[in-house]
């Protein structure tokens, strides 16, 4: 298929190329916000297991990615954190979810960006003298390498790419140009560009030309498949109900501001 052809397809069509076991994949989202929810549900329905998941943090309990850990489908997580969901914490502490090392959030983002942009890696000063201390990450095959550049000690952080990437955007045109909405951008564009095969789950699919070129957050040629997920209004309603339930939205605010 050409990089410029129509990429709209069903989730079945988009994800059927995944191996049943052992897929290494990037996944967008930030603590439960802007995750590819429908694709995650497909992974669960099809029992896609032993996943190595490269993701900013594990997610939010009860939402999207958290269900992958709950179902025991993730073998290893490469991330900045393991404790943002109870599901990931539980699997980690019982020994069924591997964490080889943690990366500071900005380090992980830059490693993936480097992978997306065809670089070998990045030089990162954050954590030198801390994250390379003996005993912290005893399972590392090789110690973290430090280079002094411009007088600054930096870790040599190899780039990260993955055979698969699943991300979420606001809307896509049929060529796969993606537009992001507010903080839904987070790492979705970068992660989308670092997959050999990238699926974008979107709230709305529009004709080519509908997204102003300067509003394209991830160019279509990076994207292999566009699938329809929940709509913006469905997402808003889902999160409003969640936030009301946990007290992060207050019904009385409505009256005050009405």
């Amino acid at each position, binding site marked *: 298929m050409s990089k410029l052809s129509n990429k709209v397809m069903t989730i079945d069509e988009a994800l059927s190329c995944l191996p049943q076991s052992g897929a290494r994949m990037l996944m967008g989202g*930030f*603590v*439960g*916000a*802007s995750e590819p929810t429908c694709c995650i549900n497909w992974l669960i329905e099809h029992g896609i297991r032993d996943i190595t998941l490269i993701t*900013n*943090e594990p997610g*939010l309990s009860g939402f999207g990615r958290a269900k992958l850990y709950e179902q025991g489908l993730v073998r290893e997580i490469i*991330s*900045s*954190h*393991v*404790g*943002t969901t109870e599901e990931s*914490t539980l699997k*980690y*502490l019982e020994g069924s979810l591997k*964490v080889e090392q*943690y990366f*500071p*959030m*900005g380090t992980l*983002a*830059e490693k993936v*960006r480097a992978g997306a942009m065809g670089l070998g890696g990045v030089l990162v*000063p*954050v*954590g030198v*003298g*801390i*994250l390379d*201390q003996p005993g*912290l990450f005893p399972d590392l095959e090789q110690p973290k390498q430090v280079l002094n550049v411009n007088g600054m000690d930096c870790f040599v952080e190899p780039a990260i790419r993955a055979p698969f990437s699943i991300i979420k955007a*606001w809307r896509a045109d049929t060529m796969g140009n993606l537009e992001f*909405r*507010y*903080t*839904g*951008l*987070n*790492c979705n*564009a*970068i992660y989308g560009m670092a997959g050999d095969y990238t699926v974008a789950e979107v709230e709305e699919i529009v004709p080519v030309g509908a997204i102003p070129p300067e509003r394209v957050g991830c160019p279509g040629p990076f994207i292999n498949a566009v699938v329809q997920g929940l709509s*913006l209004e469905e*997402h*808003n309603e*889902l*999160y*409003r109900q969640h*936030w*009301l339930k946990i007290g*992060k*939205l*207050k*019904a009385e*605010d*409505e009256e*005050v*501001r*009405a």
Partner: protein
Amino acid sequence: MNARELIARRAAQELKDGQLVNLGFGMPTQASNYLPEGVHLMFHGENGVIGVGPRPAPSQAQADITNAGSEPVTLVPGAAIMDLCTSLGAMRSGLLDVTILGALEVDQHGNIANWAAKREGKWWPGMGGAMELCYGTRVCIATLMHADKKGNSKILKNCTLPLTGRGCVKTIITDKAVFQVGDGHLILKEHAPGVTLEEITALTDADFVVADDFHEMTF
């Protein structure tokens, strides 16, 4: 006033008009409820936003306008959205003026530990964006209870847990006292209402000197 509110109120006094600020979760976030009059700040969220505003009414909340804890927020006029590379890069490169962080331990060298404790032999839960904050932010303020539930000091000569930042903490605010970080020792600046110097001394493992202007916190 309970201990956590006292810490949040005292931490709020460290914030100055016009600053770009990142507040950690818990007591640091509470500090935004007690800003001194006339202090207007821009809040940064590491999920990719400068200009985080207050909680919206339910009908205005949107799934993709959230803070770093995935809570619904508004965006203030002048807000800017960015991807995670830019958001964390801004933290690393020194764009933020001040951060208030929760801590598990701090020490007399200005070190802070807040991302890992050992659970069942494993380090948990991870640093998220806390190391970038400590690395790049001009002023790091650590907030924590002075001692654990058994009475063991959390204000140490040397942190025992994996560090989040080295030598970055300028001010330590606890439920008992306020310290500035000096050259290899702490400087005791303030005590909480009703707390004596003897009590602070007994609860503090770190070496400290008492400032000439040592006084009670004011609210």
